[in-house]
């Protein structure tokens, strides 16, 4: 044995032991348990929410998403690093905002990258969209916002009949034609392809833009229907009744209590607390009182009860 082992075990009675036998028995038992769980309960695989699905099933939500992004109302607008250069909205504690330390590493111009660039591709195939795009881009910013404001207001009163969206009459300029172009792009199942066209085609290595696209109202609505919102302990479970990352319950719990539950800096606050907790766990052997807790709790007497009985 090593010198350390010899010093530790001096005077301690030993018993026969078979490491490999014990390991193989435990492995076999756990393997059986895991196979039974897999056979009986299977595993979750809820399908993704795609542009095509939203365009066909919830066309008004689809149009609202696209128009809001174009109008500058998406949550990525002014998000700050790593997506945009506006650092004012970065989460901070005592004036320290780690999000700003490394600048914009994933640049995204929401209106341009998520709507106008895809529309430029639609314009190659559709003369109506091509003309509308030219009209829109040559208009003043104020005019563009006026059209978008009227269009978004009209969407609140829009009706859907057999997949066709009926808008009340109004002055939407070229925006209605542009949004029809986006809707057709989605219905054709080409939205994600158009969004990721800036990556290393023909390989699509990065899904950032596609995943960000519906992250606001659409994804929130789906998550709400599946009890997966943050206030429903999000990561702690998966779709259906499947367990998720239950070991992150302390993390998700912090999101349920003030000030984290109501603060604009909640993510950073929770993250810092968890990092501090991790350092605390690391240093337990050296933290006075905490490193004496096991002696006072006395659970060790149960674990080593045979030893103590033998001793005395």
């Amino acid at each position, binding site marked *: *044995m*090593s010198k*350390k*082992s010899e010093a*530790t075990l001096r005077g301690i*009675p030993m*018993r*026969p032991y078979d*490491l490999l036998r*014990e*390991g193989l028995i*435990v492995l076999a038992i*756990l393997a059986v*348990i*895991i196979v039974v*769980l897999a*056979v009986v*309960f*299977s*595993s979750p*695989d*809820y*399908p*993704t*929410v795609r542009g095509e699905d939203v365009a066909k099933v919830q066309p008004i939500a689809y149009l609202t998403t696209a128009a809001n992004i174009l109008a500058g109302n998406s949550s990525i607008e002014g998000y700050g690093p*790593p997506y945009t250069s506006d650092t004012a909205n970065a989460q901070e504690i005592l004036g320290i905002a*780690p*999000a*700003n330390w490394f*600048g914009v*590493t994933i640049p995204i111009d929401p209106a341009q990258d998520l709507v106008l660039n895809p529309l430029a591709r639609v314009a190659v195939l559709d003369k109506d969209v091509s003309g509308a795009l030219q009209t829109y881009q040559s208009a003043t910013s104020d005019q563009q916002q006026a059209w978008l404001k009227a269009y978004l207001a009209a969407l609140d009163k829009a009706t859907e009949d057999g997949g066709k969206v009926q808008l009340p009459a109004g002055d939407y300029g070229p925006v209605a034609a542009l949004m029809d172009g986006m809707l057709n792009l989605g219905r054709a199942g080409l939205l994600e392809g158009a969004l990721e066209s800036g990556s290393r085609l023909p390989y699509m*290595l*990065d899904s950032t833009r596609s*995943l*960000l696209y519906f992250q606001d109202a659409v*994804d929130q609505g*789906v*998550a709400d229907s599946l009890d997966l919102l*943050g206030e429903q302990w999000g990561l702690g479970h998966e779709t259906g009744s*499947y*367990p*998720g*990352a239950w*070991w992150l319950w302390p993390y998700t719990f912090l999101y349920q209590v003030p000030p984290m539950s109501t603060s604009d800096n909640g*993510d*950073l606050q929770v*993250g810092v607390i968890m*990092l501090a907790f*991790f350092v605390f*766990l*690391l240093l337990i*052997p050296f933290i006075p009182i905490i*490193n004496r807790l*096991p*002696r006072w709790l006395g659970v*060790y007497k149960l*674990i080593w009860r*045979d*030893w103590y009985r033998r001793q*005395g």
Partner: protein
Amino acid sequence: MNLTRKAQMALRDSMTLEDALPTKMPIYVNSMAYLFGVSALSALGMLGITGIVMAAFGPGWYHVSKLGHFVNSLHFWSVQVFFGAIVLHGLTKFFMAAWRDGRWKTWMIGVLAFGIIVFTGLTGFLSQTNWDSQWIAVQAKDAMNALGVGAFFNTMDTTQVLTLHVVVLPLFVVALVGVHLFLIRHDSPVRPLPGKEDGEK
């Protein structure tokens, strides 16, 4: 100075064959509490085997193949068992104050491994390429970005997430678990806390 001879001597002093593959144990190693560590190792083995099969067939396989979905289910439940075993292992080691007599290194390496394992779990959830991963990606990005980690780790970059999950992080986990096991066997099982009859107040 012969480095090889020095390495031989260091290895001989720190890890004999009886340390690495023990055929006898101190008599106080006699509790279910000692099984949680080997349970975690076994579940890690199951994760490795099922993960290698899934990696060989690619990330889309389990969506379209019944066999693939079954292997995914094995992987999924191995994760649950793995974390259950790790949490119980950590708790029992805390209750045993297992960091005593210079074993703080074993404790800290274990906690460090647990931290990386949790992050590996996150990349696993993100690699599912289903609704769960889609939702977790857009939710987790805010936490990563707030901490400044988002500049290097993009929860929505599926390729980065996948390579981290199947290669980079498992290498760190296996390396840390290896060091953890080496220290455990080098130091031998910690002696029981002194009982009242030994003078404890």
